[in-house]
Each structure stands twice: as C-alpha cells, then as structure tokens.
C-alpha cells in the first residue's frame, strides 16, 4: 500500500501539472500578446469577440440580466502571474514528493528543465513566451534572495575570512574578466571562424558579464550539499561581493564600447568608480539598517507591523543604491547585517519568526521563478550558435576559474593562519557557478549583431555550470571527504568558552603588543555596547551581555520544545538522569546572607506559593529543566515517582514557610524585572520580547516566571536582587529534586 501511494501521487501529480502547464502556456501566451497591444488580437482565449457582441446586442433589444458572465480580461494579468507562481511552487512540491530525484539532481536543474518544457510547449503552440525581463529580475526577483542571504549571513565566519573573500571577489573577478575577454579576443582573431567583427572591448564586456560567480546559483546548489562553514562562506561571500566589481566593469566597458577609445584617465576613473560603488553601497545599506534598527525600538505597541519594517527598509536600501548606480547587492547585505542584532533584540518572538519565515518564503519563490524563467527564456530567445565561440567560452571559464583560484590561494595562504588545502581550493574553484545575473546583464546589452551570439554563449555557460557542476559537486564532495557542516546544537559550555577564548586571545594579543584581529573585534564590541546598543535597543535589553541573551534563548527554546512535545508523550532526546542534586552536595558550600523582607511581602509570597503549588501539582511531570530523568518508557515508575515528588514537595513547602531555606543554588533564574512598587506578577500575557512563550495551559514549570518588561530606567538594584531569590524559592519548590536542605538563616523575622 505504501508503495502504491507514491506512484499514485506521481501519476496524479504529473497529469495535473501537465494540464496546468498547458493552461498556463495558453494563458500566458494570450497575456504576452495582449499586453503589447490592445485587446483586438485573436488570442485563443476567445472571449474578446464577445464584448462587442454584448454591446451590439444590448442596443437592439433588452436582454435578460446576465446571471453568469465571463470576463477574463480584467483579471488576466494578476491571474497569469499567480498561475506562474503556483506552477513554480507545485513543481517544487512535486520534486520533493518524488523520492529519489531530489537526491541526485539539484533542484535548480529540475526547475530549469521545467522551464524548458514550458517554453517548449508555449513555442509549440505558436505563442511568444515571456522572457526574463531585466527589470522584473533586478527589481523583484533578486532582492528577496539577497536579503535572505544577507540577513542570515554568519557574521563571525564572514568577518574572519573577509580578507580572503575580498581577494577572491575583487582580484579573482578582475583576473577572470581580463583573461576570458583577452583569450576570446584571441580566439576571434583566428582565421576561419567568422568572428572577425568582434573587437576587444566587446570581448571584455562579454568577459565581464560571464565571469561573475552568481549568488543565486551558488545558494541553490550549496544549500543542498551542506559543506562546512568555511567553504560555504568563501564561495558565497565571493558571489555577493563581486557584484560591485561586475557592476563597475559592465558599465565601464559599455561606456567604452560606445565611446570607442580608452584613455588612462578612464582607467583611473574606473578604479575610483569601483571604490565609490562598493563603499557607497555599503554606506547606503548601513544608513537604512540603522534607521530600521532605530524604528524597531519603538514598535512595542504595534507588534504586528514589525516584520514589514525590516522588509521595507531593506528594499528601500536596495532601490536607493540602484538610483545612484551603486551596488544594490552590497547595500542590501549591509542593511541586513547591521539591522539584525538590534532588531532581534527589540522585536517580539512572533515577529522574529515571521521575519524568518517570510524571508525564506520569498527567497524560495524568487529562486524557483528565476530558474523556471531561465528555462523558458532559453527556448524563447533568439539564438545565434557559433561552435567555436561557445565551446571556447565554456572552456575558458573553467580554466580561468581554476587558475585564478590556485594562484590567489598561493598568495592568500601566506596571510592566512588556517590555510586553504587543495581540497578547499578545488571546491572553491568548482563552486564558481554562473546564473541568472549573467543572463540578465546579457539581455541589457544593446542590440547589435553579436548580442545573440553572446547570449547563446552565456546561456550555455550557465547551463553547463548549473547542470554539470551542480549535479556532480555532491558526489565529488562525498568522494573527496570534504568536511560537512557540523550539527550545531547550542551548548552553553561552548558559548561560555567561545567568549572566554575571545577575551583570552584579546588579552594575549595585548600582552604581545599586537593589534590583531581580536583586538579590533573587542574594540568594535565595546563601541557597540557603549553607543549603539543604547540608542537602538529598547529598554534594558541594551545592557544585556551576550552570554545572558544566549542563555535566555536556550532556555526559551527548551521550554518551547517541551510545550510542543506535550506533557508526557515525547520528551527531548537527552535521557539523562542527572539533576541539580548530583552537582551540588547538600548542605555543602556557601551560605549566603539572605536580605530580610517585610512581613507583608512574606504574606504575599506565601499566598502565591500556595496557589502556584496547587497549579503545579498537575503540571509536575511536564517539565523540569534540571530534572532530566523523566523516562517516557517507564510510565508506572514515574507515576510512583510523581507521587513521591508531591509528598516531598508538600513537606518542603511547609518546611519553607516556617524555616526559610538557605539560598544555595538557583536552578533557573528567569529574567526578572519588577516595577518599582514591587508587584509580583505570575503570568505576563502581553507580548514582550524574550518572554518564555509557554502558555499556562500545559506550560512548563519555568513559565511561572515573573517577567514584566519594565521600561522604567529607575530600577533599583536591591529589589531585583531580593526578588530573584523569592522566584528561586518558588522554582525550588516545584523542581522537586532541586531543593536544598533548609539551614540556619539570618532572617529572624520570618517565622
């Protein structure tokens, strides 16, 4: 039965998609025809002749009120667009249902294949297929992908390898351009290949289009093979940063090929232009990023529109950069990178999730559409095939990439501490995929007799890299045993030691007298903490050290995981029987003085504790962060344990209320903030950042956290120090094995 189902899915899916393709091609064919001119063309939709009929009919005699009428024209455009997107997504869905294909063939190849199919169908019908319009591509399809990549860029790895990435992006791309351009020109000079009309500038222009590594293609392929972070960031970072080089060179050569001559001044201006384009792009992105971060500081009361700010500011950054012919990609990346830490500190958890998912969703749709359109445009576009030109382009691209990577690595390795091995170099060279950006830039070329030939060559290179390199990179990665991405379970020990290591290395660098990498990172962190965070993060989150944010995040994740998995059914995989008791001996160690609390306070606490105790009796088994010993397979044993725990708790509860316990350990201290009147709230249902999301109903015990995000700046330290202890006391009662023995105390007034 199970075997039949995928087959049935496959068949039904296939036929449905085929029908959809047909309908889509017909519909889009009519759209293309129609959008160019008025609605008088004889489109196969067949409804256009009806309107005049209706009109003529209505003038002769009064007809009955039309109960049902067909008016396709009004909605044609959005209808077709939606249909395209729907088709793209259904195709994507189909690939993942069909079991084995997605392991062998990367998704991008399949999508291009679908595009080819659709293009073929449209052409067969005789309609004109929609082409990948450059404006559509650069203004609507590309930004979501870049924003998604930039927002989730691993900053640490990116900054550490920044030098290497820049060298590959700038010097590597320049090398590629001049090598390919020059060699193609040389090839064109060969007698007998009918390429004599191509001059050097056109070749260089062609080189500048075809030599840039494409971020969309790289993302699409590398996401699937999951290699280690270093290689991923090297290739991907290069593909992002070479946009500036590409933009400058493209405009430069285009200007020159119109002007006809090149002077030294032009060369110098070109270099200046490069710096302006890249740094200007980053600056524009940074400005918008800071604006976005600042705006997010005030969104406490309008949580619903928070994600929109992120998207709109980023998009504005992109468009603003494009206005000045600066590098839009770098602007978008800078905006996302700068905005992210502050926005994440300010927005609610739901908004954070929304941002994440919307970015992923849009970039996924965009990518799918890009590849499908690439396929369609291939079938549609005018082609001029010249064997020599195309073959030599493909070969030269490969050769120049390999030579460039090897040569640059020799230089780079002199400066890197962790050197790039031969395997790394191979993957970097092999991962230089070309994609839709090259195609769109080619489309922008002014029409001359060589444009079609260039386009054909570009498409061939794209197909070659995406299909051949994209398909074979996965088995090669397996074959060469390249290190894969390691499973990153967040570990508080690793975080502690990462920070410790950071400070240690900074200190050692200072002792050595060396202004190194760590020194500057430390300086930047301190600047960030001293100035930026104050302005851009709301409330007292701004002073929260990173370790604590990490810790809170982890706790929240655990809490959510437990909420989601339900109370007793499935528990986290760590079936460890270790609890707090194993770590701290009873009665050992420090006894701390407990500051005294007033009588009324104490009454309040008792009341709350009692009521909470009743509530938690039902929830006792559901969560205990420090009691990791709940074994889901031993239900009856745990039932007994549960009863024992309850008994224990009651005993200790009464014990507590008469003899105050010694404050020895605090199993979990939530972020506790209190308003100046020392009100203690049990559940804070309002949306405030970093609330534990657990709701009261099956909530984990830790959700009894007295959190209220206090915005007042005048938080006295004392109440906060006091009340965490009370909070701990509550937690202690509930986390059964985390109680310490009551000991001697200094609080005489509590009895």
């Amino acid at each position, binding site marked *: 039965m199970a075997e039949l189902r995928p087959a049935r899915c496959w068949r039904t899916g296939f036929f449905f998609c085929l029908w959809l393709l047909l309908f889509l091609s017909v519909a889009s064919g009519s759209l293309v025809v129609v959008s160019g001119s008025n609605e008088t063309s004889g489109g196969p939709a067949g409804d256009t002749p009806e309107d005049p009929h209706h009109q003529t009919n209505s003038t002769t005699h009064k007809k009955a009120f039309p109960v049902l009428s067909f008016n396709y024209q009004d909605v044609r455009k959005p209808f077709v667009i939606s249909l395209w997107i729907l088709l793209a997504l259904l195709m994507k869905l189909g690939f993942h249902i069909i079991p084995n294909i997605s392991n062998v063939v990367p998704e991008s190849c399949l999508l291009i294949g679908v595009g080819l199919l659709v293009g073929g169908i449209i052409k067969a019908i005789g309609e004109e297929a929609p082409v990948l319009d450059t404006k559509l591509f650069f203004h609507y399809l590309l930004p979501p992908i870049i924003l998604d990549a930039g927002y989730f860029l691993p900053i640490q790895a990116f900054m550490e390898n920044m030098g290497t990435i820049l060298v590959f992006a700038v010097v590597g791309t320049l090398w590629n351009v001049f090598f390919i351009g020059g060699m193609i020109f040389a090839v064109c000079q060969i007698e007998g290949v009918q390429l004599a009309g191509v001059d050097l500038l056109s070749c260089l222009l062609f080189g500048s289009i075809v030599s840039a590594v494409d971020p969309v293609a790289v993302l699409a392929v590398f996401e699937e093979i999951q290699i280690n972070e270093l290689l991923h960031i090297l290739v991907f970072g290069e593909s992002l940063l070479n946009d500036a080089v590409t933009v400058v060179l493209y405009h430069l050569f285009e200007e020159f090929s119109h002007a006809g001559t090149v002077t030294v001044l032009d060369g110098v201006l070109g270099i200046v232009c490069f710096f302006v384009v890249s740094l200007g792009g980053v600056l524009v992105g940074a400005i918008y990023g800071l604006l976005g971060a600042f705006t997010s500081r005030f969104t406490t009361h309008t949580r619903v529109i928070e994600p929109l700010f992120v998207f709109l500011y980023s998009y504005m950054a992109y468009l603003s950069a494009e206005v000045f012919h600066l590098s839009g990609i770098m602007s978008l990346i800078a905006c996302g990178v700068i905005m992210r830490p502050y926005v994440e500190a300010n927005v609610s958890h739901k908004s954070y999730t929304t941002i994440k998912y919307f970015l992923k969703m849009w970039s996924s749709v965009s990518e799918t559409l890009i590849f499908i359109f690439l396929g369609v445009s291939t079938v549609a576009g005018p082609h001029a095939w010249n064997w020599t030109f195309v073959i030599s382009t493909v070969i030269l691209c490969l050769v120049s990439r390999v030579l460039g990577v090897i040569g640059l690595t020799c230089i780079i390795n002199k400066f890197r501490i962790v050197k790039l091995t031969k395997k790394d170099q191979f993957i970097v060279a092999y991962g230089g995929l070309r994609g839709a950006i090259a195609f769109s830039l080619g489309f922008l070329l002014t029409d001359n007799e060589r444009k079609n030939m260039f386009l054909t060559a570009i498409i061939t290179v794209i197909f070659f890299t995406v299909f051949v390199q994209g398909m074979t990179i996965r088995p090669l990665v397996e074959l060469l045993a390249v290190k894969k991405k390691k499973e990153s379970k967040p*570990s508080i020990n690793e975080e502690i030691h990462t920070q410790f290591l950071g400070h240690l290395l900074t200190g050692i660098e200072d002792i050595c*007298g060396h202004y190194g990498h760590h020194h500057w990172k430390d300086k930047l962190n301190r600047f960030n903490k001293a100035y930026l965070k104050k302005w851009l993060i709301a409330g007292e989150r701004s002073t929260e050290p990173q370790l604590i944010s990490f810790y809170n995040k982890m706790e929240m994740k655990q809490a959510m995981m437990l909420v989601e998995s339900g109370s007793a059914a499935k528990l986290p995989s*760590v079936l*460890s029987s270790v609890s707090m008791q194993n770590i701290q001996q009873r009665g050992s160690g420090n006894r701390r003085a407990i500051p005294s609390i007033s009588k009324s306070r104490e009454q309040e606490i008792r009341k709350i504790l009692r009521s909470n105790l009743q509530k938690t009796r039902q929830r006792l088994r559901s969560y205990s962060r420090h009691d990791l010993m709940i074994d889901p397979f031993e239900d009856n044993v745990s039932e007994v344990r549960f009863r024992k725990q309850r008994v224990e708790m009651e005993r200790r509860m009464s014990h507590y209320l008469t003899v105050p316990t010694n404050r020895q350990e605090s*199993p979990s201290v939530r972020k506790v903030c209190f308003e100046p009147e020392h009100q203690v709230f049990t559940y804070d249902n309002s949306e405030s950042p970093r609330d534990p999301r657990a709701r009261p109903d099956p909530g984990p015990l830790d959700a009894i956290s007295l959190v209220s995000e206090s915005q007042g700046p005048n938080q006295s330290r004392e109440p906060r120090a006091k009340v965490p202890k009370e909070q701990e006391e509550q937690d202690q009662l509930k986390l059964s094995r985390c109680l310490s023995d009551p000991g001697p105390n200094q609080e005489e007034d509590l009895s």
Partner: protein
Amino acid sequence: MGAWQTRAEHQYQDLADKTGFSFEQIKNLYQRFQQLSGNEETISRENLDCMPALANNPIRKQIIGAFFDKRNQHQDEVGSCDQIGFEQFLMVMSHFRPPNLRTTDEEKEAMRKEKLRFLFNMHDSDNDGTITLAEYRKVVEELMSKSGEIGQETAKAIADAAMLEVASINVPNMGPEEFYEGITFEHFEEILKGLEMESRMHIRFLDVDTSTMRCGKSQS
C-alpha cells in the same frame, strides 16, 4: 650587540626547539619582553598589571595568573612563581601557536590537548584536577564582571546549567544519590571537542610591531 647576538643565537636555537617558534618570532617576542619588563631579566605581575590595554579585559587576572602558573611550563611542577624569565614567557606563548599546513593529524590532536590543558589550568585554580562548581561559577562571574549590572544570580544560573550539561553529556545515568565531583580533563575535552581548539586558539605572531606598544610605565 655583537657578542650578545651570538650568545642569543645559541639561546634562540634552544628556545626554538623547545617552543616551536621561528627565530624571527623569538626576536620580536624578546623585544616585547624587554619592553614589558623594563629591560630587566624577569617580568613580575606588576609589569603585566599596569598595562592599560588589559584594563578592560574581564578575565585579566586569570590571564596574568596563567603566565605565572608553573603548570603551563610543561615541567610537572605546580604552584606559581612571582617572576618569570624569557623562557617561561615563551613557553606560555607557545600555547597560542597556530597549526600549519604540514601539521599531521596526530600533531593536531596533541596541539589541541595542549591548548585545552592550558584552558583547564586557567579554570582549575586549586589544581586538584577537576573544575568544581565553585570554580566554574567563578569563571562565569569573571566573564560577566565587566558587563556590569546583571550580576551574581544569572552568573550562578548559567554556571549551574553549564555544569549540568557537562554532567549529562559525560555521565548520563547518574543515580539520585551520586555526586558529580567536578569536570575532569577528559570531560572538559569532551564538551569542547566541537570547538576545534587547534584552529581557534591562536594568535598571529610574526608581524609584531612592538615599537608602537607602550606598557604604561615610563621607559627608563
């Protein structure tokens, strides 16, 4: 400087063999050592304490302590000394050398062990071979000491959670009455094996421009 140079070269060869630095690096570090010590033969804690650059570092005391810790000299001695000479200085610095392309896997393992041992010694202040909960708490508190207001409670909670994590990873099935003494070196290695210490715990040694660095003391 001539006679000094030939004698120094002998010493340098010796040191280079022991610590693995190159002559260039040793020379640069020697210059720095002279600066720090005020052209004396040894450095004391005060010399390092007065450095203004270290003032903002939250784990300053541990770092300075590590230089004077005899366990880092690989000579099986324990305790701490008050003054260190150039050789000891170099030995401590040698823990921060990076691996190069030719380092074999065994050498990388050994390097990692050595670096982890350095970290372990920094945490284990009473040298009983384990990092107890109290010591770990102190580590976390120091880490957060420069961050100001958050303070004691959360530091304790974090340290407790971390300790719990170590225990659950290494000794997953402890009965309720057993007691986890502290993090031994093997457990320490286990929990940090994901960090790949040999590639992370290093600084760049060659291009040390010591002429711009001032320790904060007046140069005599």
